[in-house]
């Protein structure tokens, strides 16, 4: 096997070398100037052909891949995102088309010929001014539209928003819902313990923790039409909560709390119909390299159709404190730990 590969590589080099030799002989035979002139013409035509074929291919590819792209945005803010994205595509598309066409057309049009005289044209300040100000104005418009959306996206969440905490660790997502009190209690990284307190909830110092529900399966439950505010954190290295269907993403940084909020507008069930895919599921990807299992750090989002449906689900959950400490001797933090949960994607994939 390796001999064949070696032979092929050797053959490859020999062929290259022969092409080179042959072309040199041909040039000497036919005369250098003649060869140069004909090559020049050939290259000019090739450049033109590249332009035409390339533009066609780009357009064709665009059309053919659309059905593999993300479905409509599942959040209200994402709708804004999509329209801004489209506007930017159209704008840059036009500039792309014009400049590339000029580049290859000029190349073809002004190829060297016997008769052609180059036009000595060293500068023109009016032109420079023109193509300084026009891009500047276009950019100013883009900045204004962009910042309008940016400040919208990063504005404080409405008071009615559902609050959920999502914490990254190597390599899965931990999700915490406030209990009946509607508030999340304080955490302390020194209290973390993979056996019975994965988030380091400070039960002694903050009783609000007692009814908090912690979900280690990486399933984020939210409600259609109700703004949701994500409190994002990390236990170890930097991760990133990526929500492609909602057009959002935010780093999860140890030692720092970050947040995003958005309003889901399409429930999971509805999206299954829109995409005609019964297996459709909103996914949370980790978008910041976090180590070996980065590519498998998968979470999911379940968008419930109604608040009642969500409440129903919530009623079935048990607060972490109850699971781990009620009915058990009251001393938290045993020395030995259970095997940490890893590679949530593998689990889901195997189902």
């Amino acid at each position, binding site marked *: 096997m390796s001999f064949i590969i070696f032979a092929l590589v050797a053959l490859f080099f020999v062929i290259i070398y022969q092409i080179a030799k042959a072309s040199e002989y041909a*040039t000497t035979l036919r005369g250098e100037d003649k060869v140069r002139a004909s*090559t020049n013409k050939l290259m000019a035509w090739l450049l033109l052909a590249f332009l035409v074929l390339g533009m066609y291919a780009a357009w064709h590819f665009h059309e053919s891949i659309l059905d593999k*792209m993300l479905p409509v945005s599942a959040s209200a803010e994402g709708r804004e995102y999509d329209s801004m994205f489209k506007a930017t595509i159209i704008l*840059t598309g036009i500039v792309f088309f014009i400049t590339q066409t000029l580049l290859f057309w000029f190349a073809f049009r002004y190829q060297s010929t016997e008769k052609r005289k180059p036009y000595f*044209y060293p500068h023109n300040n009016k032109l420079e001014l023109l193509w300084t100000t026009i891009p500047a104005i276009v950019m100013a418009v883009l900045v204004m539209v962009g910042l309008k959306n940016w400040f919208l996206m990063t504005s404080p969440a409405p008071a009615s928003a559902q609050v959920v905490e999502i914490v990254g660790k190597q390599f899965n997502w931990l999700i915490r819902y406030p209990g009946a009190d509607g508030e999340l209690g304080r955490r302390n990284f020194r209290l973390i313990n993979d056996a019975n307190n994965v988030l380091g909830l400070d039960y002694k110092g903050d009783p609000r923790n007692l009814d908090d529900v912690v979900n280690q399966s990486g399933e984020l439950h939210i409600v259609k039409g109700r703004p949701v505010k994500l409190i994002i954190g990390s236990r170890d290295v930097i991760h990133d909560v990526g929500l492609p269907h909602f057009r959002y993403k935010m780093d999860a940084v140890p030692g*720092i709390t970050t947040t995003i909020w958005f309003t889901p507008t399409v429930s999971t069930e509805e999206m299954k119909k829109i995409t005609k895919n019964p297996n459709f599921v909103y996914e949370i*990807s980790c978008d910041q390299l976090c180590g070996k299992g980065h590519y498998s750090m998968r979470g999911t989002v379940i968008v419930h159709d109604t608040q009642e449906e969500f409440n129903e689900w919530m009623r079935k959950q048990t607060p972490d404190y109850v699971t781990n400490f009620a009915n058990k001797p009251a001393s938290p933090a045993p020395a030995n730990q259970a095997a940490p949960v890893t590679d949530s994607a593998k689990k889901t994939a195997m189902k």
Partner: protein
Amino acid sequence: MSTQNEHIVIDGPNLVHGGTSEVDHNVHPNDRDRHGADDALHGHAHHEPHFIFKYIFSQDHKYIAKQFLITGMVWAIIGALMSVFFRLQLGWPDKNFAILETFLGHWAKGGKLSPEFYYALVTMHGTILIFFVLTAGLSGTFANFLIPLQVGARDMASPFMNMLSYWFFFTASVVMFCSLFVQTGPASGGWTSYPPLSAIREASLGSGTGMDLWLIAMALFVVSTLLGGLNYVSTVLNMRTKGMSMTRLPLTVWALFFTAIIGILSFPVLLSGFVLLIFDRNFGTSFYLSEIFINGRALPHVGGSPILYQHLFWFLGHPEVYIIMLPGMGIASEILSTNSRKPIFGYFAMVISLVGITVLSFLVWAHHMFVSGMSPFLGSIFVLMTLLIAVPSAVKTFNWLTTIWRGKLRFNVPMMFAIGFVSMFISGGLTGIFLGNSALDIHLHDTYFVIAHFHLVMGVSAFMGMFAGIYHWFPKMFGRQMNNTLGYIHFWLTFIGAYLIFWPMHYEGIAGMPRRYFDYSAWESFKQFESLNSFISICAIVTFFAQLIFLVNFFASIWKGKKVTDPNPWGSTTLEWTTPIKPGHGNWPGEIPTVYRWAYDYKDDGNGNDFVPQNVPLREGEEAH
């Protein structure tokens, strides 16, 4: 002095060298320790320099340039080969490739890459191509080769420092190369090496010894860049020949000059970032670390901020992409003008846009951090600055287009690459407008859209510029021509291949497909790109083999290429073509030519030539530029 300077238009810096021919000696305080044409010319009896000093510890800028070039090429092969390895994994995640095991041993048992080593490959691929190839290999080659030749100097301001610069780079290379073979594998935290991942040894295999070596190599690399950069800047400022005012410099020199300035101002910040990281790794400090629970225990660190590292890193990281781009811009300007037989359009606008890019490049770094948790208000400032930098880039593009407009275009191989450069720069530059707008970046960040964007605008463009430069100056470097047919084949395969590889990646990114993933097959949202990924991988492999054509052409031509007979084979105006076909140490056997005009006088010289070299005195009635 005043008579000598008559033809010089207003130009301050030129006064530095007093303007007499003695200058040529004065500016070379080191001449006494050096050997070569310069001394021989003045009749000193001199022995040939010892082999070691001529071929290894050479201080001749032309030779050092070749050392940088060859080392860079070796790295380019390694870095590109790595991309082939990980593209095999991405293209066919469920297949095994025996060849992987042959090359990588236990990292690819049974022909299947391990995730850890996948990340190590990606990290080293990025580090190698960005720093070792497109910074050292590119600037190191062309700044060394072109600055003295094009400004009319016998060598660099400090040839000794110049030599040190290469040897620091070489040492950095050795350390980086060794890191590929340590037991826990090379660094694997991405070329950006964000802590805590890179700071905590338990966080991943590559954060062990591999990361230590990575940091040491990078520190040595920074030293090399600084030694080189200081030399380039002082040479351009102080060693221009008589008549070579700053406003007559070729755009290559301008571009390399600003490249060096950017490097000098930004690399020290990177180094300080690395030093703090070394402290955190080894001495228990907490600059970047806070509230971490890993491997079953809570670490003692509190109060540090991982974001601080990102600021320090990107303060270099962003200017770095201009360090990579500017030389290509200069080379493309030079080659487009020469082969259009027309002056570059808007010389001053070209210089001013370089200044604009240089200044703005320091004010946009945080556009890499829009979703890091940075204040949204701060983010908005960086949006503004980032989109502002599109303006000088647009000016450059339009000026290139106008340069070829109504020219008389010769499509030799360097010209093809220069056109390819402009095309790639446009394509990649336009997608930057998406990423610079934070509201759009919030979805695109760290997806394949970013991979596509920076490969086109920085990776491929810079390579196009570098290839253009190599094909163009090869006759000056080696006194021979490279083979044309192979050059054209190389160009078309590379140009088309690069578009086929990277264009589709934009769509994957728009669909949210994250970068730095080992395998997508478990993801409902991303697995539909499986066949597209195989297609990209096939294109990548073909493009990789196309580079071998270049390698054969390059090395065969050094010894077997057609000998150059015309000292100015492209009909260029710049000074390097006034040297002998194979310039010796000191570049010009006689006096250094005096310069009378700007670098782009492509016009009728009255004797049937369509260009007027810079060292030709003004004709009567001709206006100076």
